[in-house]
């Protein structure tokens, strides 16, 4: 059982403190969780969390490289050797629902533990959070978000929309303010520009100055059908549900169909989540008037619970 879950059971009055302690102790002695939270352990735990994410192999590899680079530069500084400047602003490109925010959040935690960021929190914004309607107000609005994100990560979704209106648009003012802050305040803030691959590429091509300021560029690939299926299983497992044979087959087929039909604008993990949530509701409806439900009944998702079209 996951730790947060144990705490919330205590908070809800479902289990006693003693029971909670015994659960935590058992999972610790079985080696499922570590108890000493030294810096190394905390970092290892975050890396584990990253590695547990399904797929994203190239992303994981790259983050490990960045981690190693920063760690070694820090060690070189300690030994008074020449060190490379560590610029950690990043570009995340890829479709929605491929894990960009999740990865950004983990990177924040990682850099916090490494001492690169003081807080490691994530502030997610989009154009409307940075750009104001009237002249002169955008800089202020952008600075406010930058201030909120200081010590952590400012994650700008669909960042290219800042360049949408051309030279006269206030989006440009937001970019300029951002760049200025990046220069004044070299450390303790990481900016991540995120969005679809194609418009991001164009955005960087038309703003060559930005490209060099965001040296880490990570491409998030779409999940394969199999990875999406694994994600679905994991989501269900976390909620104490499981698929029976028929349901597995049907879910896999639906995922493959959605992937094949490119017109459906398949939102990757997000769509899978919707299918799962719908299935859980349908299972509830199927069971609600039955008597003598067993534990297995309550956990099992069957073929008829799985439905492709995702409605409310």
């Amino acid at each position, binding site marked *: 059982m996951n730790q947060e879950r144990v705490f919330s059971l205590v908070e809800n009055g479902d289990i006693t403190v*003693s029971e909670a302690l015994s659960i935590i102790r058992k999972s610790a002695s079985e080696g499922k969780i570590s108890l000493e939270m030294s810096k190394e352990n905390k970092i290892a735990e975050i890396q584990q969390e990253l590695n547990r994410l399904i797929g994203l192999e190239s992303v994981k590899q790259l983050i490990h490289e960045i981690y190693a680079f920063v760690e070694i530069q820090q060690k070189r500084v300690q030994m008074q050797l020449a060190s490379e400047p560590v610029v950690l602003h990043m570009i995340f490109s890829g479709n929605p629902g491929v894990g960009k925010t999740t990865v950004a959040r983990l990177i924040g935690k990682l850099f916090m533990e490494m001492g690169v960021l003081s807080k490691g929190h994530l502030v997610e914004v989009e154009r409307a959070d940075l750009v104001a309607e009237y002249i002169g107000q955008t800089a202020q609005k952008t600075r406010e978000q930058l201030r909120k994100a200081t010590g952590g990560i400012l994650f700008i979704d669909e960042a290219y929309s800042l360049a949408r209106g051309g030279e006269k648009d206030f989006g440009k003012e937001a970019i300029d303010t951002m760049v200025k802050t990046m220069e004044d305040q070299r450390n303790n803030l990481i900016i991540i520009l995120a969005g679809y691959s194609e418009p991001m590429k164009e955005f960087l091509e038309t703003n060559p100055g930005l490209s060099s300021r965001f040296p880490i560029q990570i491409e998030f690939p779409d999940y394969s059908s199999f990875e999406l299926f694994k994600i679905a299983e994991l989501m269900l497992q976390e909620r104490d549900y499981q698929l029976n044979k028929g349901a597995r087959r049907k879910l896999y087929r639906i995922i493959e169909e959605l992937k094949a039909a490119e017109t459906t604008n398949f939102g990757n993990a997000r769509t899978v989540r919707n299918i799962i949530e719908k299935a859980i509701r349908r299972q509830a409806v199927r069971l609600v008037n039955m008597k003598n439900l067993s534990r297995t009944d309550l956990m099992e998702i069957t073929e008829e619970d799985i439905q492709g079209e995702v409605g409310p």
Partner: protein
Amino acid sequence: MKQILVLGQTNAGKTLFTINFAIYLGASDISLTFQDSHRGSYTRTLELEAAKQLLVSDTPHYTRVVQSAVLELPWGKGIKKFEIVDTAGLMDGIHQDPQIRRAMSQTLAVVRQADIILHILDAAKIGKNNILKTIGEVDFQVAQFGQLKPGYVILANKIDLPEAMEGIEKIKAEFPGHQILEISALHTLGFKKVKEFVKRHL
């Protein structure tokens, strides 16, 4: 920074110990970081005597938030900083007040990372009453949990009170194989041994 966690049932004297131990180690004020689920995390610095007035009480479940202070110990030629964390009292069974349950769940959330656990028992209360009513299942669980940690010790508190004598005997009988230090949080008795324990296990 290493973390020392002060755990125990309500009214055992956790808060008074935390504050007096801070004074003992030469701190002049205590900066308390409150972890409040409504307001998030915020810090208040209190002069130590004022903190005692404000935060110590014989009202059960008085501490509802995780309170922590940064302390220093001489270390070689320099000093070593560490954090002492005072927690909400634990209890057997399930309390009907959701606020108290939340406080206990917050205590649990910090148990895991702690480097040292100081488990406080009210030796006077245990001496005076039946152990079935005074030493809880939760104390045994904490003791068992403590074995997974490098530094776990029982502090038998309130030894300034006469009933504590018998209490200490009972505690020794109930927790064989565990190190037990006798203290009075009120009169700072036995603090030297606690300091040595902390130094050894940091």
